[in-house]
């Protein structure tokens, strides 16, 4: 039942939000909805309610598609991440004001329903349905509430993802016709026996769709623009949660469906990912807008994760699993800080900021902690993931690990540069007017800081949770 609730609560809650015209009420209502979702997820985790993690109902029987939801380790982790992030996103952007707030918050919650659906769907058609359900609200959110260049940027975002979705749909339909019982169910699709040739072109149809979403180099250029132009609350959803859709789709669909092709093309995928890591890190060093800096830094981190998914060993996969969660939490922390800065000073340009540490020590400390997690310092959550992923990459091929490892140095360069330019140095006219963050904002960031250290020091529960997914993937390759 939990699985269904995780989708229904934000879906219904979101639809209701459209009718709550008053801004403060719409805010409060959507925040409560997100808390209810979090409560449902937490209860499930605390009770170890395995039965509640799957759900099946009739949906489109004439197409052989059912409303089948299933949580394995990876999806449990991601559902928890989604339900945890939403209340934090709402509370940390509490002071932001939007035109027609009812539509804004309604669309935000619909996107949550869609994202959660992607993490849960155990039916090909249902998966596709949620995939699009997650994207459509985001198109509207970007194009209506975005920055100056929002139309052009959303158009680019749309072209990228639309082409990707279309390719995936073609592939999915082809797979559907290959099933023995004309069914979209995950089991039937997994059971399809494909020739090597079929696998090799189907692989790319799906991969491009997922690669755009992650994004993998060279399908990434929509991302910095979209992150920059979107309202920060939407950027948080995009980067903390939606990029995980691409990675998760690789885990649940791409690898089990086309294992031979995955082995055949592993060098291409890993090669692109490693190039992306370095490429994005070098570009991150060039940015003046903090949002763009974090966008490129995120591309670099995702590159390591997408590479680790293809190394075909336990270390890499387990690292990727824990990093799915860690990356979401850490990047969310970054956006919260950026949101706070932008709301106070009206700029995100490092060249216009400086000296914030003097008036806002609390904010500085929290940012430094999040930034250290971003550079994967030991005892933060990201270190566990990166260590295991690099180890997995090393087992696959030493040189990939050595070249990709350069991003460890580069990330330190751009992260420390950002800290110094924004927080250290002397105040200027703009930043002298600053004040430290209030307790609500501190609390939002404190949740993230606690998550960073707890998982960084004691990652064992996460490993136990995701073992089944890792075993599944490794089993597929045998």
């Amino acid at each position, binding site marked *: 039942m939990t699985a269904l609730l995780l989708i229904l609560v934000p879906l219904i809650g979101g639809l209701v939000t459209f009718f709550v015209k008053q801004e403060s009420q719409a805010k409060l209502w959507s925040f409560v909805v997100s808390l209810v979702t979090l409560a449902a997820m937490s209860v499930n985790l605390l009770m170890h309610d395995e039965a509640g993690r799957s759900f099946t109902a009739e949906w489109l029987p004439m197409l052989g598609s059912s409303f089948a939801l299933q949580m394995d380790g990876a999806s449990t982790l991601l559902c928890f991440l989604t339900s945890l992030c939403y209340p934090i996103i709402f509370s940390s952007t509490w002071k932001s004001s939007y035109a027609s707030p009812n539509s804004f918050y309604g669309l935000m919650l619909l996107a949550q329903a869609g994202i959660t659906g992607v993490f849960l769907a155990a039916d090909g058609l249902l998966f596709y349905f949620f995939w699009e359900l997650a994207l459509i609200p985001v198109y509207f959110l970007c194009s209506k509430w975005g920055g100056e260049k929002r139309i052009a940027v959303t158009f680019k975002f749309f072209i990228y993802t639309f082409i990707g979705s279309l390719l995936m749909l073609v592939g999915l339909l082809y797979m559907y016709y290959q099933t023995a019982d004309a069914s979209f169910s995950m089991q039937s699709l997994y059971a399809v026996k494909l020739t090597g040739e079929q696998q090799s072109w189907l692989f790319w149809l799906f991969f491009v769709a997922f690669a755009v979403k992650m994004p993998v180099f060279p399908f990434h250029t929509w991302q910095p623009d979209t992150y920059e132009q979107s309202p920060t609350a939407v950027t948080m959803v995009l980067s903390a949660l939606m990029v995980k859709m691409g990675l998760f789709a690789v885990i649940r669909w791409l690898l089990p469906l086309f294992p031979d092709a995955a082995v055949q093309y592993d060098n291409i995928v890993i090669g692109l990912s490693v190039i992306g890591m370095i490429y994005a890190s070098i570009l991150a060093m060039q940015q003046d807008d903090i949002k763009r800096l974090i966008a490129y830094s995120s591309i670099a981190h995702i590159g390591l994760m997408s590479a680790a998914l293809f190394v075909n060993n336990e270390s890499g996969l387990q690292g990727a699993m824990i990093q799915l969660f860690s990356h979401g939490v850490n990047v969310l922390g970054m956006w919260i800080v950026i949101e706070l800065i932008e709301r106070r000073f009206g700029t995100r340009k490092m060249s216009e900021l400086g000296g914030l540490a003097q008036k806002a020590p609390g904010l500085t400390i929290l940012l430094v902690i999040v930034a250290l997690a971003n550079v994967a310092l030991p005892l933060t959550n990201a270190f566990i993931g990166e260590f295991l992923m690099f180890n997995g990459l090393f087992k696959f091929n030493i040189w990939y690990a050595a070249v990709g490892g350069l991003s460890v140095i580069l990330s330190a360069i751009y992260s420390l540069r950002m800290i110094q330019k924004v927080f250290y*140095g002397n105040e200027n006219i703009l930043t002298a007017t600053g004040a430290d963050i209030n307790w609500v904002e501190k609390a939002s960031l404190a949740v993230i800081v606690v998550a960073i250290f707890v998982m960084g020091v004691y990652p064992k529960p996460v490993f136990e949770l995701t073992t089944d997914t890792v075993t599944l993937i490794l089993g597929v390759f045998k």
Partner: protein
Amino acid sequence: MKSIIDLVYLVPLFPLIGFLINGLGRKNLSKSLSGIIGSGVILASFVVSLLIFNETRAEGFIATTVNLFEFINVAGLNIPFAFQVDQLSALFLLIITGVGFLIHVYSTSYMHEEEPHHYARYFSFLNLFVFSMLLLVLGANYLIMFIGWEGVGLCSYLLIGYWFKNTEYGNAARKAFVMNRIGDLGFLLGLFFIIQQFGSLTYTEVFSQAEGMFKGDAIIVVITLLLFVGATGKSAQIPLYTWLPDAMAGPTPVSALIHAATMVTAGIYMIARSNILYTLAPVSQTVVAVVGLATAILAATIALKQNDIKKVLAYSTVSQLGYMFLGLGVGAYTGAVFHVMTHAFFKALLFLGAGSVIHAMHHEQDIRKMGGLAKKLPTTHWTFLAGCIAIAGIPPFSGFFSKDEILVHAFAANPVYYVIGLAGALMTAFYMFRLYAMTFRGTFRGTHEQEHHLHESPWQMTMPLIVLAVLAIVAGFVGIPELFAADAHKLEHYLAPVFKASTEIAETHHVEHSTEYILLAVSITLIVLSILYALNRFSKKPETGEAEGFGKVLANKWYVDELYNSIVTKPLNGLGAFTNRFIEKSGIDGIVNGVGKSVQWGGRQLRLMQSGQVGSYVLWMVLGILILFVITITILK
């Protein structure tokens, strides 16, 4: 019965608690309370360390592993959060917490001008630094060591950039962190090789497997070289040494902490810990020795022409670390650890002494503007002098014994090492006494204002100086060479179990006692001459101008920073700008936008077709039929 060894986790726990209290309560704590908490937790750690040290001295003590909790257990790789207590870690615990405590006490007075919340921040960072270093030496596997390894890097970043308003200090802090990260990548790759080869990161497992391997095995050479890359970052060796002299941007006690008790000794500890791996890789040993020796000389030449009191000391640290690596490279593991210990005493002493001078001179650091301070700062003067004699290597001060042990082993391995090493030692004596003479001898060259305010520092600062001076004088007696008395090298005896496996397989070059006497006589005579020359010259005629000719090259540190800037930093920025401009914007994005635009253009053209005029529709229809017709015919053919 539970022994004190099982409580070893208390040693790092106390500083961690101190860090949290001072960090979280920085706005509510008074300065005196911050200082008491900050110093008190280190004292508590020191007491526990002493008890542990006492246990490890017992005859027949066996290295003990204390498991705390499961950390990473994935893919057949089990890395517990565990500590290892043996002679090596126990000795380092003593040095870190002992010297660390004195530095904390000194800081309570040195930092008195700071506002309360910054004062608390300072002590919380200091505690975190000690905590990280303790993790580094206590870890029972390479991953826990790596946690401390990166942790000290972080703390040095935080403390070097402690005065964050100053952009230059911020740059120095970043430089330290990035340089360390470069080394850390090498270290990390080394760990992956160890995992691949041994399936574990736990010392006991790795070393026991390694003992069965051939000397010179390629994989061990690769592992040891990669680990050494990490050591060049952390312990400031060529080519990654340039961060350390810049690190003096932090408050002076921080320099003492970085240079003496923590951080830079990490590389030495790591190699001493992995001694069996290095003994099995003679190629790596040679690399370590040569890099160490080259660094020792290079840094010594630079120190000859520096005029900043802290810079001279900073380069002397780089140089002394070079000697320690030379020792490790020639297999004198005990000697290297011995020198870590004596160096910790006299270098902490010298830095804290320099701090006392700077304090008295109202933040003046240029020795050209000092002179004649001996009378005004008697305690600082006498203790500083003790430090200078110790580092120069005059018996019976501590530096003599440890440096001599390294040099004798170097001679046994290769006389060329010895000759170069001795040249470095002469330079050391020269620049240290140049520093001493320009600071304390001659006449005062500062302003009247400064002269008027010259005063000896309060007891919180002089007490640590006195304790360290006593240690710098007597600490050498734990390592009296066999030359003077049989079986008097207590330290060697104590550390023997740690280096047992290496001692068994290493080829021992024996040096005749008669040769050793000659070497001693030569080195002591030359060093004394060097000291007398420097004292004489710089007491009477201090260098007050800018260096010229070759001296200018030395004063500018061989232009190495400029070189790195032009071969690494600038090209990297250029590459970034190029990538941003041409590949990202014009290249990839150009293609995507091109696709988008052509779709839009296509849409506009298609729209024109729907003009609403029947005539054009007929035209299109006819054209369509014609095309279909043509296609049908070609296919039918």
